């Protein structure tokens, strides 16, 4: 069930990525739904899960972005997923500022890793613009927090709905 939910989440991120690239490319360049998904998986504080999510999410991004080298995002995603999971074990992610910081740092790290890999493999490396990285980190942080908040609300709503239905069934019986 959990796996299915995560897969649905990934599919939603693919759809979002494609939609952003298709309809609002300016936002699509800044927002990275796959990175947000990887961080969300890493927040489960399970490094294995974080790594696998990073690998799968990164490969999806590789496939969609059409990088000259397939797997750059995969490596970066794996690293980010692992590090976020490790960080979650050490930090209290209940507070929003910590979560925001985690998302922002993950976005910055992701960019840095990509840049390093491109330089290492000499695959037409681009220069890193700190302002751009900052904006990207901020936007992904905000999006991630919004997703967590929205997901929490949806979860509570679903729980209340289930409880009320159960009560009704009991009353009917």
């Amino acid at each position, binding site marked *: 069930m959990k796996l299915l939910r995560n897969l649905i989440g990934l599919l939603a991120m693919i759809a979002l990525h494609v939609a952003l690239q298709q309809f609002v490319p300016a936002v699509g360049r800044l927002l990275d739904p796959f990175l947000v998904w990887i961080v969300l998986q890493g927040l489960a504080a399970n490094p294995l899960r974080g*790594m696998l999510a990073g690998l799968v999410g990164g*490969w999806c991004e590789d*496939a969609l972005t059409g990088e000259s080298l397939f*797997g750059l995002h*995969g*490596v970066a995603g794996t*690293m980010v997923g*692992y590090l976020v999971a490790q960080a979650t074990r050490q930090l209290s992610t209940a507070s929003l500022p910590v979560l925001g910081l985690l998302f922002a740092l993950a976005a910055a790290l992701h960019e840095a890793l990509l840049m390093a890999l491109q330089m290492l493999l000499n695959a037409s490396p681009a220069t890193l613009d700190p302002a751009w990285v900052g904006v990207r980190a901020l936007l992904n942080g905000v999006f991630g927090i919004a997703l967590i908040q929205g997901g929490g609300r949806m979860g509570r709503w679903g729980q209340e709905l289930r409880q009320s239905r159960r009560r009704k069934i009991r009353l009917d019986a």
Partner: protein
Amino acid sequence: MSARRDLLVLVFLILGQLILLSAQVRDWAASDPASEQSLLAGTALRIFGPALRASQGVDSFLARVSRDLRDRRRALAEVERLETEVESLRRRNVELEGARLQLESLLLALGQAPDEIPGAVPAEVIYAEHRPWRSTVVVRVPSARGDQRQPAAGAPVMHHQGLVGRIVQTAAPLARVQLITDRASSVGVMIERTRRQAVLQGATGSEMELEYVPLQEDVRPGDRLVTAGIDGVYPRGLPVGVVVRVEPGDEIFHEIRVTPTVDLSRLERVFLLPPQPPLEDLLQDEPGGPPSP
């Protein structure tokens, strides 16, 4: 133990991916530098092809929906504009109809029958009988007018202000006219403003009752009534009366009181219109009507 395992997995995954990347770099350097083809990239592209095609489909669908919405908005605006125009033309039509009727009335008052009602004959009212159950007048057609202008039973009678009634008895040169206020009188009318048709029934007193107007119909005091031309007696468009009172009647129809446009208690001079042709004659005039014997 778990941390070490995780670290091992991480190293394994990273190394594996780096080997894959290195292999791509090697292939890439060996092949055409302009080409970015690699087995992994090609496979990934094939896997995600449907998603990319779907995005294109969604894009064109959204474009179509947007275009349809724009067209719909434009069509609604056009419909609104046309409705306003139709309403304005209707109002203008009613005004023109009123003007035409006024012109006809003036012509009749001057003793000239308008072209649309050929053969209208002026006559003098020589006797009036207004009782609760009977409202008639006797008119006399001047003999100098000749035989062709003798009163005929069923002929509509009007005053320059509007309809008076119809001839029910003739004894040339005299004729008895049943007034529209007579209890036995029924006139097919329509409300000039809304074009709603109804039956105007004579009643006790000087007022009449407009019948068979449903409660949901918009009728107001001051609405003018003209003949509808559907009863086979009166031609269409003659002023008949004005609504003076509208009250909710039974569950279905309004209770509407109407006063005649003509002061029937002071009639002196009226005009006899030619009787309406029988229905059979009208049908014979129509193409495809019954053949004449």
